[in-house]
């Protein structure tokens, strides 16, 4: 039975992530009174991109060719090592929150290098902005997960979900602070409003998109898929770490199905929240973002002081 859970855990993130991307676009379309593409369009996009040829610039080195595979692998590994629908494997070796943070940093590092590699002005700009934001979010990211690990006296994500799930509602106050700071960090890492507009065509405003302007064909598919995976990973981190009810401990069929349903409901709520946010506020000017990121850091630092 555990093998089934293990397989589901491995493939859940790559399978579901394009779906939630489609859901976000659908909700945003409805906000713009448009019908919008079907929620399965991202799957078709990936399928089409996998069946297209590639044009790679002659200035690109092996890093440009190798990065999509590495980034996709990291998202798969991360997907398998964070609590999604069951916290059965508590001794998972990869689910220490610092490992998660630094694996995300590794994927950003290589994406930024690939952005610079082709030598276009937009790629360089995109990488510079991406690395600036990544550098500033790391403080908030580590501190928000650190606050939770102090609550649970362990840095293992699975055991955090276990301990927080049987918390009484009263000492939830610091967790709300941490949740706000984690939301800010999540929005920044997955390149959503107010940090970066994923659907922009104006190259000068792009942060994440600018780095992948040069990719085409199967490499572009991998990068798009990895971005979707990363979005789902952060959503599930946000959902399962702060509202950890509904994670099964048993290994029978029904409880798995139930857990999956609860998981997708929680993720849907978060995606609607992100979509609403994207349709209601404007993108911030680049030099106002550090203040937002420092507030995230200070919020979680205060939460730690409250918790300990």
């Amino acid at each position: 039975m555990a093998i089934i859970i293990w397989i589901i855990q491995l493939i859940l993130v790559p399978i579901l992530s394009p779906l939630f991307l489609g859901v976000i676009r659908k909700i945003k379309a409805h906000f713009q009174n448009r019908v919008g593409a079907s929620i399965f369009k991202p799957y078709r996009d990936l399928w089409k991109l996998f069946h297209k040829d590639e044009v790679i610039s002659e200035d690109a080195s092996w890093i440009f060719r190798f990065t999509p595979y590495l980034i996709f692998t990291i998202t798969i590994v991360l997907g398998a090592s964070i609590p999604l629908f069951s916290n059965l494997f508590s001794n998972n070796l990869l689910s220490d929150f610092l490992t998660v943070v630094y694996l995300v940093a590794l994927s950003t590092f290589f994406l930024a290098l690939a952005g610079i590699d082709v030598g276009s002005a937009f790629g360089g700009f995109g990488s510079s902005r991406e690395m600036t934001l990544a550098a500033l979010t790391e403080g908030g990211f580590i501190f928000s997960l650190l606050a939770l690990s102090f609550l649970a006296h362990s840095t293992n994500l699975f055991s955090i979900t276990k301990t927080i799930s049987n918390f009484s509602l009263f000492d939830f106050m610091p967790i709300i602070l941490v949740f706000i700071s984690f939301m800010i960090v999540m929005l920044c890492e997955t390149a959503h409003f107010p940090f970066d507009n994923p659907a922009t065509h104006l190259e000068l405003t792009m942060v994440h998109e600018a780095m992948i302007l040069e990719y085409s064909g199967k490499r572009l598919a991998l990068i798009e898929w990895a971005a979707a995976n990363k979005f789902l990973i952060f959503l599930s981190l946000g959902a399962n770490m702060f509202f950890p009810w509904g994670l099964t401990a048993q290994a029978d069929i029904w409880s798995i199905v139930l857990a999956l349903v609860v998981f997708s409901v929680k993720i849907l709520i978060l995606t609607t929240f992100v979509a609403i946010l994207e349709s209601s506020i404007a993108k911030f000017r680049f030099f106002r973002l550090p203040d937002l990121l420092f507030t995230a850091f200070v919020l979680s630092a205060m939460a730690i002081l409250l918790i300990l």
Partner: protein
Amino acid sequence: MFNLISTQFSFFLALLLLAIGAIGSLIFAKKDWLANLWGNGLAILASVSGLVAAVKVLFFGESFTYVINSTLPNLSFSFMVDKLSAFFIFIISLIALLASIYGLSYVKHFYKKYNLGVLGFFYNIFLAGMLFVVSAHNGFFFLIVWEVMSLASYFLVIFENKEKNNIKAGSLYFIMTHVGTAFIMLAFLLLYKTIGSLDFNVIKENIGHMSLLSKNLVFIFSLIGFGIKAGIIPFHIWLPSAHPAAPTHVSALMSGVMIKTGIYMFIRLFVEILSGTELWWGVLILIIGIFSSLLGVLYALTEHDIKRLLAFHSIENIGIILLGVGSAMIFLSLNLKTMATLSLVAALFHTLNHATFKALLFMGAGSVISQTHTRNIEEYGGLIKFMPQTAFYFLIGSLAISALPPFNGFFSEWLTFQTIFNGIQISDIFIKSIFILAAGGLAFTGGLAAACFVKAFGATFLARPRNEKVLQTKESSFSMRFGMGVLAFTTLILGIFAGVVSKIILGVVNNLNGFQQISGIFSGQGKTFELSNGFAIVSTPMIFLILLVVLFLVYWIVKILTNKRKVKIGCTWDCGTKLEPRMEITATGFARSIIMIFKGVLKPSKKFEVEYQDADMRYFTKSRNIKLEIADIYQVYFYQPLYNLVISFSSYVKRIQNGILNAYVAYIFLILLILLLTFSF
């Protein structure tokens, strides 16, 4: 054969070989290649025997003490190589071995220009000095050897004396190290005055009846003295100018290993000898650590001279090591021995890691400079197509330094994070907030270091060459690549088998005199590394393995899925404009956004100069240039006023020299009378 030769023999063999190497290279100074071969060859042999000695002490625990007492009253050439000094001997010999291999061919581009005998001589003396410094066990002998090391490194810094700013950097370095040595002397004299002997063991025994005031004074003096050598923030101004001036394999040694002697003495003196540490000592070192790491990485971001950038990163990593040492001292003063052991293990592990990846990065930078003959990152670009292997090793170095998973930087930063998390759980609110600041500092340092090395690697190796000099570059020679290859491999091995290495370092820490019976902090059965209080578990080999396996799988699945697809080589898409090299991102452009964010600290300044065709008609400009600068606040607010003070005081004192002979004799007479009077009371 291995346990045939005793550690004592191999250690002194190393020193002997270095001495022979030094003298030999002077003798063969006439013929360049022979001097080079002799100097570096002997250094290689010496470091091999040094490695043997270190390994024997670390694994088989045969530490030895050896005393030759001399005629002078309290100078005794006493060596004591316990596990801590063996650990540092291991680092020194490892990096010296690879630096000498690298130096064999790097030095070729000095052939006609400079005297290689001198380089070989001072290089070997420098290595011998460092080996002595970590094994000396008598204050007086330590000072002599410390001086030898500083002087040798001074001469190495001003080796390329054709450029005048090397000389300037050398003199600044000379003054700063000797100010440091003065403070160290003060500390030792104070120790001698209260305890009566300069031998470290004697001092260690009866440190008890040292008054608190003198202990604090010793702490302050040695903090300043060794801090200058380690390059902590307020005293770091010599480091970014001195390290780049030296030839690369020497600057790799200097910033990889020499500043670690400061750390060695911090641990030896504060943790072991002055065993009753005060709380505020640890807090002070922690705060210095935070400032050094954050400001170090910020200044590194503003640099676009590749070796200065790496030198600033040494300051940053020293800051991280000091975080470990500072938290260890805080735990010691609250006598939480287990946490102190963990933080010391973190500090020592990061020392080892920093030595390896910093030397690797300097060697990479050196081979780039030896090909392009300039240190300015803006004039590189696209080097990965001309020097693929150097680029690959530099990439591994930058991954390791920005603490990214499969490499060794990650584990030591993970360990330092664990110690700071332990610190946060202390009840006292003041210390907890300091530790939270430290954790915040370390988190931001990690992020900014990654940004800085994307800039350094991207601007140097990727995209198109930004000037034609790059087109003639070719891959560096075999021994340079071999040196870098071995170092890159060690960073990977240290990263993967971090559990095993940390157990050895635990043995080193337990060997210190306050830590004999502490064990069970963490259990690392080779694969996983788990803190005994169950707080955190990580297994570095698993990360590497899983990443590799999944990467392989993904590659093959995608290959099968899309094998019918062709890959066409086109030119970079840039909205259809004609793309010249000037349009790609440069190092200054990359870091400009971060500099603007931290402009309060860095105080960037921008000056426009516009030159018009003719005076009255202001429309057509002939040339327009922008000067971007970073204000060096230390120079302006700390060193310049100090300098003016000293100058004004000395000009006041100068009036004594009025030229009259008799006046001088009168001064002597007065002093004699005063002395007679004072001592007759």
